[in-house]
């Protein structure tokens, strides 16, 4: 058995019903494949004991699960009201400029995906930017070049 399958069996054991393992199993498949490719969905379905269609139907509902390729790094700038009041739009635009892409796109080398995101639940620490799913708080437009450099250095 593959290690992925082992991990999913272990996850399934935590729940009274195998279906509850769907989200964690999809997340794990995405981590291993980079995104939920048809192959990743097949592997996930096999481990869960269901169909790839079920996995795709579930995955397509959730913002953090990606059915198309994404960058190795993910930069998500909260642009909801509290962050917008603190200047989130300028932060987002500085990322666009620094990365040479528009929001919603991935750099040509496949390294970084940039996107605006809905409220991250850090309104008091605006602007919040989630970099590889870890929050950076109080981000100012002038902080952007250093964050991009950090990603390019592979830190």
């Amino acid at each position, binding site marked *: 058995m593959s290690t992925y399958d082992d991990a999913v069996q272990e996850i399934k054991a935590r729940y009274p019903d195998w279906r509850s393992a769907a989200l964690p199993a999809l*997340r794990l498949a995405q981590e291993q494949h980079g995104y939920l490719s048809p192959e990743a969905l097949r592997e996930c379905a096999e481990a869960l004991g269901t169909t790839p269609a079920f996995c795709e139907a579930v995955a397509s509902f*959730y913002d953090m699960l990606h059915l198309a390729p994404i960058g190795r790094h993910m930069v998500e700038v909260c642009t909801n*009201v509290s962050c917008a*009041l603190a200047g989130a*739009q300028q932060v987002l635009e500085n990322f666009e400029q620094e990365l040479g892409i528009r929001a919603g796109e991935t750099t040509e080398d496949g390294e970084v995906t940039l996107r605006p995101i809905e409220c991250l*639940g850090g309104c008091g*620490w605006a602007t919040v930017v989630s970099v590889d799913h870890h*929050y950076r708080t109080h981000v100012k437009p002038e902080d952007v070049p250093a964050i991009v450099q950090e990603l390019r250095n592979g830190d």
Partner: protein
Amino acid sequence: MATEPRLIVMAGTEESDLTRLAEYEAIGGYRALQKARGLTPQAVIDEVIASELRGRGGAFFPTGRKWAFVPKPDQNPNPHYVVVNADESEPGSFKDNEIMARVPHRFFEGCLIAAHAIESKNVFVYIRGEYTGPHEILLGALKELEARPDLRGDVTIVLHRGAGAYICGEETALLESLEGKRGQPRTKPPFPAIQGLYASPTVVNNVETLATLPPIIEMGGAEYAKLGVPDSRGTRLVSISGHVERPGNYEIENGTSLRDLIYGLGGGIPGGRALKAVIPGGSSTVILKGDEIDVGYDFNSLLKLNTAMGSAGVVALDDSCCMVQLGIRISEFYEHESCGKCTPCREGTRWMTQILRRLESGEAVQSELDLLLDVCDRINGKCLCPLGETAAVAVASYVEKFRAEFIAHVDQGGCPFGESSPLHDVLAPVAVHAPATVPA
């Protein structure tokens, strides 16, 4: 009432690192659990009813009464479940984030007290997928707890991460998601207390609600009910953000004046600007004008102004903000987060955004303002869950309270604020996925 924080849920955080079990136990942690386990489940429920605690997630339902709806094991032999709503996603709210990050053990202690009260052996914590930081802290705390069978007893706690969906904060959508499905709300009844997770009796409680249980059991329900004001007992963690000098979470006694929250704890409006509006309880609540803040921050006082504490997210907006732009951003949020199950919400939120965009760009004629309110009205009360309704009520309140500003957009053929408003041309996720097309 003085603008002093009153630490009940966050008690001890100023002196100790309560993410560590040893430090939490040193200040008396998990003693309330031992006390609760010495009581019958019914006695614990009675204590919580006596405390008059009401749900801190936003719906404000009496916690003890919710528990009392759960059938006893001899009435329904299916396993009983405690499900924690840690899917905090309401724009303006970030309190559960801080509770999990700073008092994870008090939170877990509350989970175990709730499990005892409804005779459950399984707790599922549904934590929003984006909360990597709090999740890691909970994992660490849970590891410590699991090494202590004397505390954990025979109860299993499972941390379950969401995957990015505001709607999963609605309790039945959360249960669907926890069952591994698309997070779309269920019809009610049956309510979760009768048929919740895996169609079994289930209590769904918010993080703050659960973290309030240990102090309630410790001091006694009657003592806790002395705090606050009628119908809003105890304390509340209020998230203050937007145009204030000192944004952050502040635990205050319910009934503290909203003015004191903004100008006292929040430090007032930066740059000597005037306060234009306040979102009092997260994006879903009716907005208040800057001169409506001499009101107690509690259920009844806010109800008189036709609004609510919601999830206690206070967002202050200064006089540089355009209310049409605010409407666009809020409407775009709900459009993006609508699960698509009910047509009025799925289509209506999109129409709202389109009309608001026409107002902002100056293309709209006067009658479109009425059209906007008509669309809002056609969402209200016509959906399974409150998502679309709150979008409609919130945006309609911007029109009602700032009507002259909306009309000025029509009369002037554009926005009087333009780029000087900080909400000008903010890129929302929904605009990236599907650019809003303007009907000819």
